[in-house]
């Protein structure tokens, strides 16, 4: 590989690092306040417009939710300053056991961790 190309690549790496540092330092991310019931329902309507969940649980820190529609769990969690939504069989979610106030779920390419108020699962809102 010729020297000029290496210098150019090195310069690009430095430029990328600096730009990321500027973005982190200035903090221009979207605000993501903890979810309340209204925000959670709005999020469900956007992510799962064809579903009609009958029960809703919001994580203790407001960073995610699990809704239930019969044998179906609708899972939404915060990733960065946005949200990711996935579906899972309710049984897979109800069989989980929280540990030290945390509940970890494996849903496809995501492994969200939900804050739970106590280690009782499933919570009364979803049972």
């Amino acid at each position: 590989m010729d020297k000029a190309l290496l210098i150019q690549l090195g310069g690009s790496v430095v430029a990328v690092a600096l730009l990321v540092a500027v973005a982190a330092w200035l903090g221009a991310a979207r605000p993501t306040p903890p979810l309340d019931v209204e925000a959670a329902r709005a999020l469900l309507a956007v992510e799962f417009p064809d579903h009609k969940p009958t029960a809703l649980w919001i994580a203790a820190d407001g960073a995610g939710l699990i809704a239930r529609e019969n044998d179906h769990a609708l899972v939404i969690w915060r990733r960065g300053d946005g949200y990711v939504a996935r579906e899972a069989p309710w049984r897979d979610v109800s069989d989980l056991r929280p540990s030290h106030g945390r509940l970890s779920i494996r849903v496809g390419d995501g492994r969200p961790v939900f804050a739970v108020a106590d280690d009782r699962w499933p919570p009364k809102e979803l049972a």
Partner: protein
Amino acid sequence: MLKPSFDPVQLAIPFFVLAIVLEILLGRFGKAKANYETRDTAMSLSMGLGSTVAGILFGGVVFAATVWVWNHRIFTIPMTAVWAWVAVFLLEDLTYYWFHRIAHERRFWWASHVNHHTSTHYNLSTALRQTWTGGVAGTWLLWLPLSFVGFPPAMVAIQKGVSLVYQFWIHTEAIKRMPRWFEAVFNTPSHHRVHHARNARYLDANYAGILIIWDRLFGTFIPETDEEPCRYGTVKNLGNFNLLHNVFHEWVGIGRDVAGSKSPREVLGYVFGPPGWSPDGSRETSHTLKAKWRAREEAASRAAAEEKAPSPGASPASRVGT
């Protein structure tokens, strides 16, 4: 004639950097709509850097193929003629439209292009979120006919660079609308926001590079509406910030589906069908998502009409809710 004397993209890199810093500042101080999330920005810029490296690694093959085609050309088009630049501008942009459309509507090419759409943000750094696997996907083959007709490879390369540089500035929420005449002819931030939106109503639209006229001509144009703001990303947003997952996830998905296929028809469907295709129709494609959205819209407008219309036998007083 073979190698361009300059690369518009290389020349524009300092402008890219300054424009991103400016957009971050404008967003931070509330002067314009612009959001930057650190890991999302890191992913976009790393994708841009990796794409450059992938381009260098695969560039030799593309260059050799282009030269071979050029050596078998029909005409010899002079690089110094103005008409030739006008022609290459239009033909390259038309080629880009079809490349981009195929890259969205067929899964094999979507696997390479999806990376550009995985950001849930729409800012200038998103423009640099470029593919690493374009060489493997072979979409560069679409530009070979230009050299076969007789456009010098250097001319095509410069025009491709100009198109890429043009498309940088339209990746922003900071600009709401351009003048009407401009919106009618050119691809703009508004048109391209629609293209990056994951709202069902906006899917598979506005494939243009520089000229939006191709979308208007081929029926893929959808205007941005204020009633439904764009939500960015893919229909199913990525569940993590893993760079390699972002680059290869759709390829892995194709491999997994092909491995589980029960017939050659299924293999073809999984590889070359629209993204989301499945033999039993259990997965969602853009087409089914749009159909469901339309059905919801119709149901909502019917419900609204019924609410407005007086029910038979109702007294005038009951109609006004007294």
